[in-house]
């Protein structure tokens, strides 16, 4: 009936169009400044890009109530475990209404051992161009966005999961980045729970 939605491509266009609604300038303007509102679970401001280790930075966006991002928990944990010596992994909770207590409980339930950060003002969301959870972004040590999008192709649509994924975008991108090779992994949109329109 309506235009967009029956054909897969158009849906993707809509998604990118929403992206464009964010002020594009932010993508650059924030490179030097600490991301606004980003805190750890003790409430202290944290800038994941301000680091001296020279490691690759990986942000994985999740929420406590999203079944798709929850099903990914073991995968996220596995990839971060494999590269933890050469990349800094952060679990980012961008949904403002989720409490610190809920997040702590969530980390425990899903056996996460990653550093969790809250991003209630979408500073990291904008910088990583994130639209849904789960979605990942890989940055060079100097903060350049190398990859963002799905972790792999396990889900093709809501409720449509493959028996096992056939791609591994996040692992490929991290592997290239830590080896200081060019990241050529094409950014594929992630399937997951839409972030609330406004933080």
């Amino acid at each position, binding site marked *: *009936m*309506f*235009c*967009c*939605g029956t054909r897969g491509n*158009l*849906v993707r*266009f*809509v998604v*990118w*169009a929403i*992206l*464009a609604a964010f002020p*594009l300038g932010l*993508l650059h303007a924030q490179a030097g400044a600490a991301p606004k509102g980003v805190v750890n679970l003790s409430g202290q401001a944290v800038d994941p890009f301000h680091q001296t280790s020279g490691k690759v930075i990986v942000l994985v966006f999740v929420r406590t*109530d*999203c*079944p798709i991002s*929850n*099903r*990914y*928990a*073991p*995968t996220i944990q596995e990839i971060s475990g494999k590269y933890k010596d050469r990349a800094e992994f952060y679990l980012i909770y961008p949904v403002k*209404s989720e409490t610190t207590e809920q997040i702590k409980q969530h980390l425990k*339930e*899903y*056996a996460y051992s990653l550093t969790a950060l809250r991003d209630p003002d979408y500073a990291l969301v904008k910088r990583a*161009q994130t639209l849904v959870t789960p979605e990942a972004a890989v940055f060079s040590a100097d903060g350049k*966005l*190398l990859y963002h999008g799905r972790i792999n192709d396990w889900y*093709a*649509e*809501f*409720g*449509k*999961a*493959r*028996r*096992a994924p*056939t791609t591994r975008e996040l692992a490929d991108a991290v592997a290239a980045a830590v080896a200081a090779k060019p990241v050529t992994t094409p*950014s594929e949109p992630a399937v997951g*729970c*839409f972030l*609330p*329109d406004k933080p």
Partner: protein
Amino acid sequence: MKGKYAAIATLAASSLVMACVSSQGQTSSLKTSTGITGGEVTFNRDIAPVVFKYCSPCHRPGEAAPFPLLNYEDTAKFARQIAYMAEKRIMPPWLPVPGELKLQGEMRLTDAQIALFKRWAETGAPRGNPADLPPAPVFVQGWQLGKPDLVLRARKPYLLAPTGSDNYWNFIFPTQLAGTHWVKAVEIRPGEKRVVHHANVLVDRMHSSRHQEKHPGDGFAGMELRIESETFDPDSHLFFWKPGSIPHEEPPGMALRLDPGDDFVLNTHLQPSGKSEEIEPSIGLYFTKQPATKFPMLLELQNDKALDIPPGASDFVVTDEFTLTTDVDLLAIYPHAHYLGKELRATATKPDGTMLTLILIPRWDLNWQAVFYYQQPVPLPKGTVVVMRYVYDNSEANIANPFHPPQRVLGGNKTTDEMAHLWLQVLPRGTEEEHEMARRSLQEAVARHDIARDPGDFAQQYNLGAILQASGNAVEALEHYRAAVRLRPQDPVANNALGGALLALGDANAALGPLRIAVKSQPDYFPAHYNLGNALASLGQFHEAAEEFQKAVRLRPDDSMAQANLGGALAESGDLLAAQRHLEMAVQLDPKNNVAQENLAEVKRLRANGRNP
């Protein structure tokens, strides 16, 4: 990287402009169809009634959905996503397209309702006038049908691993009731609802599932549950749970008979959630005093043998058809395929040539399979041809394809096999007596239909044997029991049936062989020990007979006939004291057991006459 996205964004913008032109064309008709005159779509007036009816039943605490949708704040937070899900008809989950037959509990949004969600999301999800807001939905907490008469709990929870693909687990619930009960409804509480996709309950009168458990109470894996029973007694009730479903209550006179010792077996489809989950289901039983007077039956169309789907085939068609041998009312329908199913259709062509679509599922999704009840029984006269037509997609494009790259897939019970099944719950028309005949004729027709296509169909060879035996046609019954035993030479149930039939025909000698195989294959199979005892007793081998009856009694100490026959065999062996003890037990268990009464009197008389200490 960035440059690429900028280009896409521009392209998207132009697409959207075009999109708006076409959607505006629709907007005017939308106004007339929904009665919106003010233009603005608000939560309170337009969205809340739809959300409360279609979303809230599952989207509330304790239910299957991941987050609540109970008020403006809940809903506005997901406005864009809801519009997307509604437009793609992913939510609410409802597979059949509307047809001439109306289904109970239809969860399908109209095009106009979908348009409302879209406009609401696009215009920033306004709340609207508080006076427009309908009352919040009120839900029954806990058991949906009220306090059950009996609650059965899983004896051991199943621990679902955090990762992996779909998982199927079966739980056995033994019942310990005194006397026969009539069950009008079964409410399934599947445990952690967020990981259970659906669940079915079957009755197992012969404990045929128990030997699949490693230890009693463990449960067992398996996607397809098949209960085999040694008597022809199909339980044609569909007890089913899916997220949001209200338990089905059988109409008066259609209760399920539950005998002492019967087991319920719950088959669950689970999906790992990312963390370990303990699945601890329970089932609530609701009894009625009114015994069953109407006996529905399940007609099963299937053609698994035709399922040999080459890799890459995207439109592989499998059909089956069945001609009704009697007038029936169709009450419910349950189409079933696995992960390659694409389009599932069932039709009925009446003798006058009119055709009805019984169900059409254009985009099959195993995750949302269900039993569908018709709002009104659908009368189908004798001679109606029911046709099942399923299309399968074994290409890479089918996301649910269990194989990557696609492989040849055959029919079978495993999750990676495929299935083509259609169950129809029908109630034969006519008087109670005609009813019984009609049931047999239908079941016989189904069995003959399946055997004609596949003489290697063990279950139907066995079933046809049982039907023929029940109709008094023992000689033809033997032929089909023999066929079943040829197909599964060690099967305890088929061997026991063959032995039992031979025994009934007076050929105890011939009965010994199959009965001995049955007890050897399944040493805890009560009927085989009982029948073997009878065969031995009728050959005058009372010591051996007593041994078999002993085993039978150990398996079921409360079976009056087994106690009576043990008493009889012991008496014939000369042990009158022990015989009296078991005969007294038999009478105590069932005072109406005449054989036991008579034998007890005889044993007492013999003992009084001093024939035995």
